[in-house]
């Protein structure tokens, strides 16, 4: 009997403190980067960033609308990191107008419009975003419970859960083989479950910073 009590005590202790409880939404953020090593041997010395965040759409109707909520964070955070890597004089902004929107955080970076000559740069950086509504469907089988004189098993039921996710994609194209032969040199995927606007903004900034920080080969 002592053994049984001891076993029950320890088993209860084990189950009572099993980890994996609360998870904050930022704990689900991931930053994934891929690179083509040949494009960084040597690394590019100059880059032009497209001053527009394009939305990538699927064909299954699960895309969420995007109203440029985090354009500023995506473009200016990326611009700051490019300037830090290559220097102001080697970074260009490609914009459809002479007054880009949102306003660049660094006024010393040269703005190129469709009316200007294309500068001779090593690479281009294209930002984009994917916004999705994700739905999970699963069948839950509740446990059987003892009733007065028999075991009662609740019937299984269908559980549907959904969450919204956003992925910022930064794609660095190597242009040194010619403008008609660009090669993908580096791609960053900053993926997060969407939350409040302020949370989405700050997590976008930290995600882009992390993408550059974990890619030391970029310059």
């Amino acid at each position: 009997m002592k053994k049984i009590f001891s076993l029950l005590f320890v088993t209860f202790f084990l189950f009572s403190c099993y980890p994996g409880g609360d998870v904050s939404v930022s704990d689900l953020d991931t930053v994934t980067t891929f690179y083509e090593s040949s494009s960084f041997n040597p690394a590019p010395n100059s880059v032009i960033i497209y001053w527009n965040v394009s939305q990538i759409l699927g064909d299954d109707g699960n895309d969420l609308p995007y109203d440029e909520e985090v354009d500023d964070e995506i473009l200016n955070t990326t611009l700051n990191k490019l300037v830090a890597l290559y220097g102001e004089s080697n970074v260009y902004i490609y914009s459809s107008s002479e007054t880009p929107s949102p306003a660049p955080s660094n006024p010393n970076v040269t703005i190129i419009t469709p009316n200007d000559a294309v500068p001779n740069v090593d690479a281009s950086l294209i930002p984009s975003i994917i916004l999705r509504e994700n739905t999970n469907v699963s069948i839950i089988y509740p446990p059987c419970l003892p009733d007065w004189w028999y075991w009662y098993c609740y019937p299984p039921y269908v559980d549907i859960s959904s969450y919204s996710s956003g992925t910022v994609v930064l794609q660095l194209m190597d242009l040194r083989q010619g403008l008609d032969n660009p090669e993908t040199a580096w791609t960053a995927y900053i993926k997060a479950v969407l939350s409040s606007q302020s949370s989405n903004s700050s997590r976008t900034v930290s995600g882009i910073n992390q993408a550059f920080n974990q890619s030391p080969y970029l310059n």
Partner: protein
Amino acid sequence: MKKLYITILLVIGLLSQSNAQSTYWSVNWDLTSGLGDTNDFIGNISLRGLSVEGRYFINEKLTVGGFLAWKTMYEETDKDNEIDIEIDGNTGTISGTQRRYLNIYPILVNSHYYFKSGGVTPYAGIGIGGAYIEQQIDIGLRSIYSDSFGFSAQPEVGVFIPVGISSTGINLALRYLYTSQAGELNSLSTVTLAVGFGFLN
């Protein structure tokens, strides 16, 4: 007649002496820490562990027996923790908060030597067998799961401290568990402090 009576008593006394301890059982709470690569994977000391063992005395000081345990280890990493990855020939890095889990289930046969009989009894021994290991890394909305069954060895030192005059007492043990590389998982090394109840029969 008197001599016969005394002889019978002596024989019974000797038999009862030799059978004074026939089995030893213990149920323990295991506190486990990883060593080496295991510690690099999960650095936290785990307070979630349970072990049960039974030993049979083949003579006054030597036992053979079996050992079962379940240890769960867990750690949540920093957000900036990075993993190098290669997918379809593409080289890269993924970072994010990782929730790392290890479930370790050793199943061993063992033998122990008891340095004395009666009272506070120190012992040393070794167990050999296998361990089923489940490893899981949750990152973002993804989960990476691996499991294996590897060869295991577990040297151990401990002490049985009887409480009062009963055959029940406190069991304390320090164990080192090594499990060989198997499947997708690397070798595993842990050290465990076991605290529990011991029962001498």
